[in-house]
């Protein structure tokens, strides 16, 4: 009897091993191929499938899934896939896979033979529920929200661009006014300088003084001459002083005109600043807020596509398994209701709130790799990454589903992009997070149109992107930061630019680094978009700089021109006047000195002459008296 048992056990064991080694794999392969082909509607085949019933492992090679739309092509091809089931979990009818791998997935590869299959019309076609049909009802409709000023015409109207292009600016009229004022002044002073000839007068005066002969003879006749000379000298002195006074008054007038001109220039500066601030204010650049311009440039495009963008994220949600199976319940303080015993009923199950069990299925890790090898798709990206914790109920493992991938994009010079995502379904959260990061993105040869001084092309730049997306039932948030460095623009140098376009060109020329942040969120149905960038700062700084430069240039030009008209002659005039004045003064002083000396000498001589004359007079008088007395005496003697 024991031998029979042994034989039976041995036979069963050998049969099981034989089945496992010889039959299990082909049977599983055929079954999978048959049902998968029926499900896809085209041939699904594998070169090899190894199933180990005892080890609960499956390894497949060269899986090809034919594209039902084009049976000479594969939907995708997998070089190797492998996974192993956990035995203990399997005993509980649960699927637990520690690690699975799907290697070298290739999409759109060509088939060597037709992958068409005959579908029995009698057989009910196997339909697979399209997860896309389970889309969330979440719908975005921003058309009526009116939160974005995206009307470009309205924006242009408010900015009054035409006015600036035409040059109808206060600054321009103020500049013209100043130009007129400057021209008038320069003409006036040119005329004044040309017409003013003080030197002639000075020479004339000098000549008049030169004519004076100071060698007076000490006689009475000299007195009149000396007095006449003194009068001449005083007259010249008076005239010279009048010239000096005139020079001083003209000088003061000139300084007043010059100051008035400077005040006008300062006034222009003030007007320009005010107008610039007004323009910047209209462009909302004063507060360095990018809302209007950001919305103007980006919001339209963004909002037009927001439904597509968001719905694609909500499509992904339908692929993430929802929690099912036994859910860990939160402990409550509620009193347990005593079960009423019914005779014949074999007791009742006691519930332990904190107990955990294997989820219905749990794949801890799947390593996936995909490449463009053999694919018809050009520049197929190379993808490698892992998917963690695909589980029927995340509450049982307290971990969200995570995806970590590295993507190399040949289309962008083998740009390396990292994409991480997590799908959290714990405690009814229903939250998805995406994180995208990429460095050294080559952004090249982007056309800008080249109108109004804008660049023709963005030749080259290094890009960097970092962004997150949060998707929930009542929330959609996305925050992206994009940085462009080493920006190099190409401009159309043949284009004739007006002043406004020139400014625009200068602005673009100064842009070497650009960053842009998009912060879009929808909370409880209320959307908000904030686009930030350093472009506003660049615009503000550059417009300010260019305006100030232009103003400074104008000021310098004006001063230069004004000086060339006024300042040169002014200097010349002043130096001439000063020189003449000094010359005349010194000459006059010298002459005056001589005249005064001569005058004094003449006065002395005059006094001497007068004294002499007096003494002669007295002598004459005495002599005359004596003579008269003598004569009289003689005559009287004669008489008497």
């Amino acid at each position, binding site marked *: 009897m024991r031998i029979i048992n042994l034989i039976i056990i041995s036979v069963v064991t050998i049969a099981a091993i034989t089945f496992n080694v010889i039959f299990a794999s082909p049977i599983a392969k055929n079954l999978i191929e048959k049902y998968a082909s029926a499900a896809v509607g085209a041939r699904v085949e594998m070169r090899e499938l190894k199933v180990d019933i005892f080890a609960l492992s499956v390894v497949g090679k060269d899986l090809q899934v034919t594209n039902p739309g084009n049976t000479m092509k594969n939907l995708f091809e997998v070089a190797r896939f492998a996974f192993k089931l956990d035995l*203990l*979990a399997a*005993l*509980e009818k649960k699927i637990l896979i520690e690690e699975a791998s799907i290697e070298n997935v290739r999409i759109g590869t060509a088939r060597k033979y037709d992958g068409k299959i005959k579908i029995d019309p009698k057989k009910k076609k196997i339909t697979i529920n399209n997860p896309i049909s389970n889309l969330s009802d979440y719908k975005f409709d921003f058309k009526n929200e009116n939160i974005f000023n995206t009307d470009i015409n309205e924006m242009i109207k408010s900015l009054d661009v035409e006015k600036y292009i035409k040059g109808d600016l206060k600054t321009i009229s103020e500049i013209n006014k100043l130009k007129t004022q400057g021209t008038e002044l320069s003409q006036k002073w040119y005329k004044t300088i040309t017409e003013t000839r003080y030197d002639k007068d000075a020479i004339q005066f000098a000549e008049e003084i030169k004519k004076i002969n100071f060698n007076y003879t000490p006689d009475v006749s000299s007195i009149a001459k000396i007095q006449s000379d003194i009068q001449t000298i005083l007259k010249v002195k008076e005239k010279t002083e009048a010239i000096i006074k005139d020079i001083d008054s003209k000088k003061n007038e000139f300084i007043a005109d010059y100051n008035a001109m400077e005040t006008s220039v300062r006034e222009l500066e003030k007007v320009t600043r005010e107008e610039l601030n007004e323009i910047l204010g209209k462009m909302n650049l004063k507060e360095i807020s990018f809302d209007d311009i950001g919305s103007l440039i980006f919001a339209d495009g963004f909002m037009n596509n927001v439904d597509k963008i968001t719905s694609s994220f909500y499509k992904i949600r339908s692929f993430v398994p929802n929690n099912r199976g036994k859910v860990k319940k939160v402990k409550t303080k509620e009193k*347990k209701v005593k079960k009423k*015993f019914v*005779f*014949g009923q*074999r*007791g*009742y*199950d*006691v*519930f*332990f709130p*904190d*107990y*955990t*069990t*294997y989820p219905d299925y749990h794949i801890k890790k799947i390593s996936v790799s995909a490449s463009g090898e053999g694919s018809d798709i050009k520049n197929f990206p190379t993808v490698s990454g892992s998917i963690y914790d695909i589980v029927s109920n995340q509450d049982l493992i307290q971990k969200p589903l995570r995806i970590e991938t590295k993507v190399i994009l040949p289309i962008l010079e083998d740009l390396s992009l990292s994409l991480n995502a997590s799908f959290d379904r714990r405690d009814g959260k229903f939250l998805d997070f995406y994180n995208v990061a990429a460095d050294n993105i080559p952004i090249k040869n982007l056309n800008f149109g080249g109108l109004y001084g804008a660049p023709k092309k963005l030749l080259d730049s290094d890009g960097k992107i970092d962004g997150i997306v949060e998707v929930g039932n009542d929330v959609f948030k996305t925050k992206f930061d994009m940085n462009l460095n080493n920006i190099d623009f190409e401009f159309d140098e043949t284009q004739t630019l007006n002043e406004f376009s020139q400014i625009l060109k200068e602005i673009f020329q100064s842009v070497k680094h650009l960053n842009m942040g998009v912060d879009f969120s929808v909370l409880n149905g209320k959307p908000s978009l904030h686009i930030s960038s350093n472009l506003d700062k660049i615009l503000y700084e550059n417009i300010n700089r260019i305006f100030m430069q232009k103003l400074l240039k104008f000021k310098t030009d004006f001063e230069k021109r004004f000086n060339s008209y006024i300042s040169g002659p002014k200097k010349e005039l002043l130096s001439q006047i000063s020189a003449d004045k000094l010359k005349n003064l010194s000459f006059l002083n010298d002459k005056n000195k001589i005249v005064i000396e001569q005058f004094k000498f003449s006065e002395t001589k005059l006094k001497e002459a007068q004294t002499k004359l007096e003494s002669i007079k007295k002598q004459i008088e005495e002599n005359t008296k004596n003579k008269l007395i003598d004569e009289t005496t003689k005559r009287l003697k004669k008489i008497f």
Partner: protein
Amino acid sequence: MFIIKLLSNFFKLFTKDNNPTQVGLGFAMGFLISFQPFTLLSVIFFFIFWIIKVNKTAGFISLFIFKFVAFITEPLIVPIGSLLLEGIPALEPFWTSLRSAPIIPYTKFYNTSVMGGLVVGIVGFIPVTLIFRKLYIIYKEKYREKIAKSKFIKIFKGLPIVNLFFKINKTIN
């Protein structure tokens, strides 16, 4: 064939010399299993019962008898299980860890009837072994001969169907 073998062993139990301890253990195993509903635990107990050297006939007789007893005493067994599973809070973490462990939940230990039956089975295992061992010794010494020589047994042995049964049993052996 199994039934013939079982009946044969049944007769052997009452007519031949058997180890009293094995008989006692057989009864105790039957007692233990009969207080269990059909779960992984009862399967394990049955497997143990099958592989260890105990009197299988005694076990089956015990199983048959105590199944009725267990059914009748169910209202007493369930409160015992309930007390252990729900009445002692200190044990709750232990039960939770067992509930979370693999395979063990298949024993349905968290059922009040299973737990109560297990407690009764374990507690009663040694007393039942000792009692039935003693009873079998008493039977062997005092009543076996008398019963073997009784008229009822003689008539029973003379029945053609019984003779046929013994012939078949002899052929099998």
